[in-house]
């Protein structure tokens, strides 16, 4: 636990609370400390580019589930090739916001969005936007691994087949994406076996590989680690810091340590409103709002 000293003071102070690791479990798994040492090897503040261009410029977004408003006037820039973390208590609208970005909310009957999300010159929310194309450019990874009941290869190849890519391209890209998701070594010998045979963490990385395969520009991740054990979580966090070199990443997380470990920017949501967005270090060390401070110091949520 010597890592604690490297972390900001506010984390140590609330360590017990916001650490999701189950101690008993960790004690049974000696590998953790080895992995954990790795954990400190990246530091988002080193790759932070405060002047990064805005990849998606979300402005004055209101969102409604039928009559119920779930987002209130949210404006937030998503920076190119940076990790933006969204935090906030349960039900505050993080997932809703994330899902507006690739129009996944279209699937919810009665859902309605207002506002502007400028992506590459067009408005994501525009009804005329080609959502199929949009989703090929803005990929998504979900909270629970939603592997298809197909082989590992077929899972990763799915999006490529959608695009009608030739077989050789598919082969090459599948391998590349599995490398990207740090899964290649574990599955290279069993590409044709069912993906459902993988562990939870492997399945989650498979979903990430699947998303990477179509080479999106932006990757949305909704609590990708919440169902995973500490080791799998670390693997994915590590992967994120690798991926951000090529991809713009938006990640929703309940785990504030995770936000501080992987993200360059953090937005704090409360009851459908974006309370504050700033560089992660700023948010955690000098929050401007009382609510933000209360939340990150664990007084609620």
């Amino acid at each position, binding site marked *: 636990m010597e890592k604690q000293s490297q972390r900001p003071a506010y984390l140590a102070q609330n360590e017990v609370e916001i650490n999701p690791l189950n101690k008993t479990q960790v004690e049974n798994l000696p590998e953790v400390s080895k992995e954990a040492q790795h954990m400190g090897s990246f530091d988002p503040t080193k790759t932070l580019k405060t002047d990064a261009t805005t990849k998606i410029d979300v402005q004055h977004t209101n969102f409604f589930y039928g009559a119920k408003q779930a987002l209130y006037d949210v404006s937030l820039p998503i920076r190119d090739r940076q990790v933006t973390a969204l935090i906030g208590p349960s039900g505050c609208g993080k997932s809703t916001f994330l899902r507006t970005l690739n129009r996944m909310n279209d699937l919810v009957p009665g859902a309605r969005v207002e506002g502007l999300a400028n992506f590459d010159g067009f408005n994501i929310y525009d009804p005329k936007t*080609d959502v199929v*194309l949009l989703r090929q450019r803005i990929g998504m990874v979900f909270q629970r691994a939603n592997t298809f009941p197909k082989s590992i290869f077929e899972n990763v190849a799915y999006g490529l087949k*959608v695009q*009608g890519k030739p077989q050789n391209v598919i082969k090459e890209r599948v391998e590349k994406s599995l490398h990207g998701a740090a899964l290649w070594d574990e599955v290279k010998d069993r590409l044709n076996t069912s993906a459902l045979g993988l562990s939870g963490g492997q399945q989650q990385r498979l979903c990430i590989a699947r998303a990477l395969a179509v080479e999106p*520009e932006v990757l949305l991740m909704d609590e990708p680690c919440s169902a995973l054990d500490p080791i799998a979580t670390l693997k994915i966090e590590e992967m994120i810091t690798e991926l951000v070199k090529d991809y713009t990443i938006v990640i929703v997380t309940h785990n504030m340590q995770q936000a501080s470990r992987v993200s360059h920017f953090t937005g704090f949501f409360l009851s459908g409103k974006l309370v504050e967005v700033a560089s992660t270090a700023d948010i955690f060390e000098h929050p401007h709002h009382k609510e933000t401070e209360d939340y990150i110091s664990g007084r609620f949520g």
Partner: protein
Amino acid sequence: MAANSVNVKTENTNTARSIGTRRGRLSDQIARGIFFVCAVLVVVIIFGVFVFLGINGLQMFKDPAARNFFTSSSWDPSADSPSYGALGFILGSVVTTLLSIIIVAPIGFGMALYMTEMAPRWVNALLRPLLEVFTGVPSVVIGFLGLVVLVPWIANIAAPIAPSAANAGNGWAAATLILVIMILPTVVSVSIDALRAVPDSVREASLALGSTRWQMMKDAVLPAAATGLGTAIVLGMTRAIGEALAVSMVLGGDIHLPAKLLTPSVLFQPNINITNAIVLYFSEASGTERNGYFMLGFVLLIISFLFICVSRYIASRSVYK
């Protein structure tokens, strides 16, 4: 410079992508249209059933002789002055349906209670598949058994009180028992579903208050499942009133209602109902009579429609889905 080249690359990919997806979108649109047509087909069919039967059935009222359709029980289309009173047929269907549901309800609920609340596992393992088979058993198989087993048996038992010993086996009694066999599996299955839908917490609540299992069933589970059990009754009746061939095989009647309706012996003589009339006479009827059978079919349609509405209403009031 570097940024530029990246942009160009992105644009290329996008054009390729949009071409790839446009084909997909078109097939998506076509598929969607086909699916929509198929889904609406169900509405078209039921609408067609109402319209075609309704129009043909109601046409009978163009014939002034048909005015007594709902007021008389004398059905005699071939008489010199034809009469089209359908009350006798309707009465037959109502009586057999009510009698059968009166018999089936306690047995069905009892079986469902036993199977959900008390039975050892093997009993369920044996009975559930059996019930499911019987829910879909061909009605003619039951009708055949009715003819070769039930009718002679009833004839033996009821001969002394029946007006005609030779025909004592046919009639409402046989039809009712046939219907009991036909609808009991349905009623039991739906009742079991209703009882299963009652959460275990209700059972625990009752038992934890020191009730016996029987009190738990009677005072907690049955009331909580009331709406589901109501649905079971209504579904059973829907099936009973529309049952045709099996009933027709044992009814033995033609177009005449027995003279004395208010004696028990009315159950043990050839008798009539709606479906039997249609099965027997529809294929040779013409003119007003033919429309009369369509009208009878329309009456059945309306009755089953009302039953469905009632069951939907009951289900909508259920506490536990």
